[in-house]
């Protein structure tokens, strides 16, 4: 049973436009959510997180939105840059410190 779902395996966006990566979850007990970015042959790096008590968190070009009623979160990147091309993992966790990851979405930024 997949508790964290990223239904789009890949996404292509023009450079300078907005990239929107989506994530759905099933477990209402998750109390925080994270996004990680991964380049090939490297470990994932933490990007941004949001607590379940918030609906938005912003860090520079990256904004994460949380809709608890819909059990949905999204990562917005604006403007998109070539270096943003990577695989993005959505993750969710609760107080026992285990994090559950989605399958990832590969983002291609087109010139």
């Amino acid at each position, binding site marked *: 049973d997949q508790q964290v779902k*990223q239904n789009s395996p890949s996404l292509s966006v023009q450079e300078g436009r907005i990239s929107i990566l989506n994530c759905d979850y099933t477990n209402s007990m998750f109390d*925080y959510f*994270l996004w*990680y970015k*991964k380049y090939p*042959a*490297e*470990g*994932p*790096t*933490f990007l941004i*997180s949001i607590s379940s008590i918030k609906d938005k968190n912003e860090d520079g070009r990256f904004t994460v939105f949380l809709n608890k009623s819909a059990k949905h979160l999204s990562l917005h990147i604006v403007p998109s840059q070539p270096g943003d091309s990577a695989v993005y*993992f959505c*993750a969710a*966790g609760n107080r026992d*410190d*285990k*994090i*559950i*990851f*989605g*399958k*990832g979405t590969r983002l291609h930024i087109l010139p």
Partner: protein
Amino acid sequence: SQTIHQWPATLVQPVGSPLSLECTVEGTSNPNLYWYRQAAGRGLQLLFYSIGIGQISSEVPQNLSASRPQDRQFILSSKKLLLSDSGFYLCALGVGYNEQFFGPGTRLTVL
């Protein structure tokens, strides 16, 4: 600052051979440590986690095992590799309340 070392970086092994992947961390004590596997189409799958020496929790039943002989050492092993064990293996350490910091990974190819 915290550092994670993983070796080897790449490994090619025949089916049925044993496996030992090592992860060591620096810059922290008594960390929570994790083994993940990234396989094609499977995202990041949590395999094992450890909250201390000799304490291992298995998330997915399989032919892999993990051990934590020292506080900052986490080892992933197998007695007989399967083709399906191919993937990118990542060691991670729990940081703060809700983040995980990942190592550089080991690319394992089972032939």
